[in-house]
């Protein structure tokens, strides 16, 4: 019984199908990676799972509950057990690093301030930013902000956590630490993780299962070993980051030469 079960997912932005019949299973206690070219809808997928967007067709079940059939209160109860790391960090800009990490605890629990302090410092220590606790979000670099957001996402000890690009903007050292951290948290806390990432090597290192998305479909799925051995040209190109091949780099539309030669001048 998978923790997250996505069936026949359809989602459109205007006329463009972002998802066109996608099935995904996320298993409890495992790290599942979602990969795919930029703009395929990985962030959109996480928002659909979190109930912030509504699919046009298909169902998404988290822990046996259909996310889009829940009442407001039930959805919020469910979200308390899901952590999400936003691509941008999404820190509250009027609070310090410490208060940002303490925020979910203060909102959802009645813990005494001394205990909140301990919990927050533990989380900040794990991301290496304990001594940056008095900084404001505007004083952090992008990579630091994302690490604070990671600490915040795990303060409530969720059953599942969704990471949107956790590795971008990290230097090799903090990247290594983060990869380790995600891996360790998964084992120690029996967490279920969904990692969205472009960093093929790092992700393949810790992922138990990988889904490759492109143009609204799951192109390939399987363990990292299986994908690396895949005979599909597409998969090989993506996993090895080759510039030429079937994966389009361009946003879909008319051909470049047609565009250059077309007489239409808009200005």
């Amino acid at each position: 019984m998978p923790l997250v079960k996505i069936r026949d997912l359809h989602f459109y932005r205007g006329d463009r199908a972002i998802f066109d019949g996608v099935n995904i299973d996320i298993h409890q206690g495992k790290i599942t990676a979602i990969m795919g070219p930029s703009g395929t809808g990985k962030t959109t997928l996480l928002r659909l799972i979190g109930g912030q967007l509504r699919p046009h067709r298909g169902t998404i079940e988290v822990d046996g509950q259909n996310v889009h059939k829940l009442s407001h209160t039930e959805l919020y109860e469910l979200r308390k057990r899901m952590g999400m790391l936003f691509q941008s960090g999404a820190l509250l800009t009027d609070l310090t690093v410490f208060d940002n990490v303490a925020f979910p605890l203060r909102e959802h629990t009645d813990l005494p301030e001394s205990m909140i302090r301990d919990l927050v410092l533990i989380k900040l220590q794990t991301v290496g930013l304990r001594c940056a606790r008095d900084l404001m979000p505007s004083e952090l670099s992008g990579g630091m902000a994302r690490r604070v957001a990671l600490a915040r996402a795990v303060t409530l000890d969720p059953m599942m956590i969704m990471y949107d690009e956790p590795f971008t903007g990290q230097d090799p050292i903090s990247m290594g630490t983060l990869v380790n951290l995600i891996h360790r948290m998964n084992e120690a806390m029996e967490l279920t993780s969904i990692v969205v990432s472009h960093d093929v090597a790092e992700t393949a290192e810790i992922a138990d299962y990988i889904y490759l998305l492109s143009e609204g479909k799951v192109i390939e799925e399987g363990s990292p070993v299986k994908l690396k051995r895949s005979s599909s040209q597409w998969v090989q190109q993506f996993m090895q980051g080759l510039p030429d091949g079937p994966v389009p780099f361009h946003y879909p539309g008319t051909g470049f030469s047609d565009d250059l030669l077309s007489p239409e001048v808009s200005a």
Partner: protein
Amino acid sequence: MMETIRSLGIWGLNTFERLGRGHLFLLHLLTGIPALFFRFSLVIQQLYSVGVLSVFLILISGLFVGMVLGLQGYNTLVDFGAEESLGVLVALSLVRELGPVVSALLFAGRAGSALTAEIGLMKSTEQLSGMEMMAIDPIRRVIAPRFLAGLISMPLLAAIFSAVGVFGGFLVGHGLLGVDDGAFWSQMQVKTDWFDDVFNGVIKSMVFGFVVTWIALFEGYDAIPTSEGVGRATTRTVVHSAFAILGLDFVLTALMFGDE
């Protein structure tokens, strides 16, 4: 021709859709109000940034409006030999009309636009969706305290405006133009009715506070999450608030004083 009709239709539909969303938003935020009485510190923070920071502007504007009223009123009244009634004129103009209306317009420009920009920026930097994913309802946690603060601040600011205005009128009337100060105050006290004038004025400013804060918060929450979108939303807050204040003022005045 067809194009014009079509775009008119689209415009109409969009307007109604926005109105509908605005009302749903209001209902949603009102459900967050009761919980605030157990966490009043959230409202106090907002009372400071919405209310207290507007006080200086209100003080200065009220003083000048009152002084102008004193000058203009005296010029008119002196022709009828009724300059003793200057206090009444100043006080009634302020308490019934200018206090609520001008302070609401200033409030929309100072606090309303700031609220829209703040909420709009929080939206465009994903702070609001971030809260949603932490299972914290941003409408109840962020919007509702600001709404309550606007609701509380507006009548108080209007009262400050009127009080300072009366003082300004007195400064000009007595100090500059030599109206007898006893007559100024006593006529004012006799002719100003608690219920008819003061209470109705307070009701007006409560209505304006409600509408301006609602518009400001909704525009921010509904803004297109880009710098241009937030900029446009801020402008709309000021423009729509001005329309709403002046239109509602007419309706309220007709209801309150229309049958005299």
